[in-house]
């Protein structure tokens, strides 16, 4: 009992020493404060924010492409815009789960649950979006194959769409995997310690 008291008493004295030493040190400077205040939100959060900004731009670009430059059927155009709007709404809703302030100051166990929910939503979104995108690409290719009278132009449009689709798909999967890696790492660390 005495030993126990001595050890803990010693540790209390040591922590008081540490605090006293730090109180007398200048560890906060103006440059540090400025740098801290300029800091933006976390990696995943900022990626989702970028996507959120890009969505209306892509919607406008699609409208410009398929309503004015290479007009396709209204049904296909509306479906394209609805699909993009759906993506935007999903990103917005999922981004709300990742409020970085909560990640820093919230209860770690609760935050872990939120991250797992975020992950599940993203995976479901991927499973739903892949067949949807494939169906949309098939529909768009069909529309473009019946566009205008010049077969070379038709083919160029289809090739362009297919190439763009494949590049977009690869970038999307790469970003998705890196986002999941970040989330998994945080979830693993929280699970390890709680």
């Amino acid at each position, binding site marked *: 009992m005495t030993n126990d008291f001595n050890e803990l008493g010693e540790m209390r004295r040591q922590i008081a020493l540490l605090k006293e030493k730090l109180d007398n040190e200048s560890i906060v400077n103006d440059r540090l404060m400025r740098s801290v205040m300029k800091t933006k939100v976390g990696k995943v959060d900022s990626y989702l924010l970028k996507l959120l900004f890009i969505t209306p731009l892509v919607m406008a670009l699609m409208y410009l492409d398929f309503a004015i430059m290479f007009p396709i059927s209204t049904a296909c155009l509306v479906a394209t815009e609805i699909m993009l709007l759906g993506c935007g709404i999903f990103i917005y809703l999922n981004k709300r789960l990742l*409020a970085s302030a909560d990640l820093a100051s919230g209860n770690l166990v609760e935050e872990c649950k939120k991250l797992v929910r975020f992950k599940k939503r993203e995976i479901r979104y991927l499973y739903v979006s892949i067949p949807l995108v494939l169906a949309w690409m098939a529909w768009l290719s069909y529309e473009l194959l019946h566009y205008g009278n010049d077969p070379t132009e038709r083919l160029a449009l289809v090739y362009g769409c297919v190439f763009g689709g494949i590049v977009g798909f690869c970038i999307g999967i790469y970003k998705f995997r890196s986002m999941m890696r970040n989330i998994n790492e*945080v979830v693993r660390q929280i699970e390890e310690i709680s």
Partner: protein
Amino acid sequence: MKENERQFADIVRQHKSSIYSVCYMFAKDADEADDLFQEVLINLWKGMDSFRHESKINTWIWRVSFNTCISADRKRKRKKEVRLSMDVNLFESPDEDSRQIRMLHERIHRLQPFDRAIVMLWLEGISYEEIGAIVGISVKNVSVRLVRIKEMLKQMNSNGEE
């Protein structure tokens, strides 16, 4: 400086030793302690708007400090944009006080991160209720963990003596 920036600077200056002591206990060297300190300040700044004074400011600061240090990604490439103007390196100074502090660091560092947080708060004389609120576990869980931590510390000490 805007009002919220001034308020933030005041809070940091007032609580710098508590924040830095958490970073010190979770770091392996002075560079890592500085990195963690900067990371905690960033999270405090980001969380300033969402802090609604429902809990005490001390509780919030402890919580942000521990959460940041516990979940910090150690593998991440370090950014060395801003250096702290810390004159004394607690990891290397030869004086007796620093030696005592290093002894404490060694003991606490051998514990699991979550247990480190609990024992540090307990050493600061914080109540079980508040410790529970900071680390997000029940009061009963705090007392159970503390008993286990004390046992571990005792065992470490006896192993050290042998």
